């Protein structure tokens, strides 16, 4: 429902003030207390409330996917497949992948932080299509329901990659339900991307030119391009898999002369750019955090902004590097290898620019900055090991081994989740109006970093030794490294539980947050914590550059 603002009214009518139990002065009206009751949440069109609805769904999915990871790591403590059956193990890693990729990592930052922040950052009252935004969330939940249905009916065992002809003709599990779940969720991504693109193009505040936009917004613009250009392809791909299973269409069936490798092309045309869907928003978070905690404009702002677009575009040209040994032609492999090396460059540029931003800054290591620094370190390792995989001759040995598993976890967990956690901490005061306990948060950040490295670094070695991925049982000589990895995973799990506890605690008991607790720049810090429903009392007008922490006339040109 939309709120009409009449003449002279700058905010919605004040509802009856709710009785406050915690603090004497009745809280101002904000988006959280403007209305109460389940209906006011489930029918809301406020982007901030929808963001919190997403947070609920995403968090649930994260811990569901995480519990599968726990079981996987427990199984791999011993070489024999003795904890669960092979069938169960295969379902565990499949559901871990499906849930973490499609239901956690892809929506995590865009649908929660992006949804909450983009309109505020550009000085708008909401996204361009608020009802569509709510619909996106319902579609996401419906897709999740299909997947959970597949899970409770017995699961699915194709791997998150759904490779044909295994998925179309051989698996006896609930491929159709899981495939439809991802198909449906895809439309949630598409609609979110569409909403962001139109919003960023059409609804920027007066004076907010493209090159004054926060880098978080740039990153989400690039991400949204991938959403709208890539997601439809995975949708049609999974739909054809479902049709091939259900109606015996034969598009990938080798018995008819169909080519299973065509499926891989279509799958990776989306699923490689999907990696950038996960990492680009995290890069946006890191840009904001690094600027704020060094109190400086990001070094080479324009270059960093453009590198996001470059990653989004180049990211679409490299999908074949997942298929070097698949039976794809040797020459196509070479072209995809070359292009894959090119996409490494804009990522490297970002890392160098963040590092340069710290130079002569005023650097403070609050929790968000700890996560950002962790991101830079882990993303660097993840990116550099990506070079190993892009080098065709070397990829032959390491592909489909734990080397790949380690590499993409460094990008997705070390990169995307570190960015996500950093972002949650950074904007938590804005979102909830409460401060979190800084000491606990720092401890958790360090635990996550240590646990992560212990979990995934040994997997690089395992992979080069030759341990294939998706193995339920493995030769004995791999055990030591697997035990290390599992030990790390238990530390990592603790690191993830801690924020869950203290952040929830802070929602009730944390000290009230001022509008701008970090003394940060950006429109979101100019409005109250938490903001009112229409975000700003008055239409903001932007008169300065992004991240103008100190007057421009003091600027030095290096």
């Amino acid at each position, binding site marked *: 429902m939309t709120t009409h603002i009449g003449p002279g009214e700058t905010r919605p009518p004040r509802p009856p003030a709710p009785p406050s139990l915690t603090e004497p002065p009745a809280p101002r009206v904000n988006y959280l207390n403007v209305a109460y009751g389940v209906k006011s949440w489930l029918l809301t069109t406020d982007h901030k409330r929808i963001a919190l609805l997403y947070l609920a769904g995403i968090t649930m999915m994260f811990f569901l996917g995480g519990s599968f990871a726990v079981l996987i790591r427990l199984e791999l403590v011993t070489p024999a497949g003795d904890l669960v059956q092979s069938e169960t193990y295969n379902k565990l890693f499949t559901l871990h992948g499906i849930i973490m990729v499609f239901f956690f990592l892809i929506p995590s930052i865009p649908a929660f932080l992006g949804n909450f922040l983009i309109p505020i950052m550009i000085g708008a009252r909401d996204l361009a299509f608020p009802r569509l935004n709510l619909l996106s969330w319902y579609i996401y939940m419906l897709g999740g329901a299909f997947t959970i249905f597949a899970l409770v009916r017995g699961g699915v065992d194709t791997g998150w990659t759904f490779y044909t002809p295994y998925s179309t003709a051989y698996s006896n599990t609930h491929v159709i339900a899981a495939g439809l779940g991802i198909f449906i969720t895809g439309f949630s991504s598409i609609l979110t991307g569409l909403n962001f693109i139109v919003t960023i193009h059409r609804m920027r505040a007066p004076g907010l030119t493209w090159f004054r936009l926060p880098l978080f917004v740039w990153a989400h613009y690039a991400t949204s391009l991938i959403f709208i250009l890539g997601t439809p392809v995975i949708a049609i791909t999974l739909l054809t898999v479902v049709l091939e299973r259900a109606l015996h269409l034969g598009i990938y069936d080798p*018995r008819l002369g169909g080519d299973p490798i065509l499926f891989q092309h279509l799958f990776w045309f989306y699923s490689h750019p999907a990696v950038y869907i996960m990492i680009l928003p995290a890069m946006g978070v890191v840009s904001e955090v690094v600027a704020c905690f060094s109190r400086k404009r990001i070094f080479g702002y324009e270059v960093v902004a453009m590198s996001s677009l470059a990653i989004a575009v180049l990211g679409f040209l490299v999908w074949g590097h997942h298929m070097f040994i698949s039976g794809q032609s040797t020459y196509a492999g070479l072209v995809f290898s070359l292009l894959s*090396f090119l996409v490494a460059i804009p990522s490297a540029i970002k890392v160098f620019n963040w590092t340069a931003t710290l130079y002569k800054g*005023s650097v403070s290591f609050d929790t968000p900055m700890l996560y950002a620094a962790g991101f830079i370190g882990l993303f660097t390792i993840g990116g550099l090991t990506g070079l190993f995989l892009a080098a065709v001759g070397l*990829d032959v040995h390491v592909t489909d081994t734990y080397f790949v598993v380690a590499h993409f976890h460094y990008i997705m967990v070390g990169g995307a989740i570190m960015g996500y956690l950093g972002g949650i901490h950074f904007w938590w005061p804005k979102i909830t109006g409460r401060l979190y306990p800084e000491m606990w948060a720092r401890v958790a950040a360090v635990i996550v970093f240590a646990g992560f490295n212990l979990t995934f670094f040994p997997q690089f070695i395992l992979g080069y030794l030759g341990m294939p991925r998706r193995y339920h049982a493995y030769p004995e000589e791999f055990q030591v490294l697997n035990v290390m990895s599992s030990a790390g995973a238990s530390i990592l799990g603790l690191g993830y539980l801690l924020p869950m506890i203290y952040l929830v605690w802070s929602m009730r008991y944390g000290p009230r947050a001022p509008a701008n607790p970090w003394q940060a720049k950006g429109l979101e810090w100019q409005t109250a914590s938490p903001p009112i429903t229409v975000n700003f009392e008055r239409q903001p007008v932007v008169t300065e550059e992004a991240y103008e922490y100190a007057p421009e006339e003091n600027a030095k040109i290096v």
Partner: protein
Amino acid sequence: MDTGLPLFPEQASTMAGRVDALYLFLIAISVFFGTLIATLVVTFAIRFRRRSRDERPPPIHGSTALELTWTLIPLGIVMVIFLWGAEVFFAMARVPPGTMNVYVVGKRWMWKTQHMTGQREINELHVPVGVPVKLTLTSEDVIHSFFVPAFRIKKDVVPGRYVTTWFQATRAGTYHLFCAEYCGTKHSGMIGTVTVMEPAAFQSWLSGGATGTSLAAAGEKLFTDLACVTCHRGDTEARGPKLEGLFGRPVSLANGERLVADEAYIRESIVNPTAKIVAGFQPVMPAYQGLVTEEGLMQLVAYIESLSGPAPAPAGAAASPSPGAGEHKP
């Protein structure tokens, strides 16, 4: 249990050293850049730590020179890596002449190997040291992947088509054979061993056991049983093309295309005969898909290959359309 902490896999093929050299080069690059970034972040964080609450450092604008530096230097480095990786990759794709040929069928959840001399193994492969071995692989069901870590080779085995890989073992021993492409319930059980033997030992392995008939002879029997000879008689009145001397030679098709008769072409012409019609013939051959097992098909291919003489030029050498970059080093 092996309590040691392994860090590096065994090297047992001519390719292993080349892959490892690239690997070590990349580790050096990674350590350099990883240390560089980590050092800079930590140094800046300490050197420029916030000293007062309201400190506002003067802004520094970007620098085109610096941006170009950290664009072009990484670009140069990755191009070197690309070329190096491509060179190794071509060496893997290009089969050297004079190989010993082995046919491999992947099937959930086992590897079936057949030697030209007729030995058949399951989840095992015996090869001599120092001889290049060409593998022609296919799958009976889903996609598998033939992976021997000690040789640094891996190739996805795709149903409905042939793929090729090769290796030359350098050290006698027993090495892991893994399926590296997820193939269902017992994926992690689809493992075996590759036993590399000294030539003399290999010869005695070949002569030991019930050898029976060679692969080509088995193919010839199948050829007779399926009555292929009714049409492929070899005379000018025959309804099917002459097969003697076909393998490794160019073929003109009815649609004007030309190709070289390799294993994949012969397999396709048996299971999908109308796919590529030889010029001057009618598409009258029935399809044998589903009537001959993949192993039987490989026997037929071996038989037709044997009709072109005892030591046919490998298809790779005969058909290669591009100049010989990335020569194989023994």
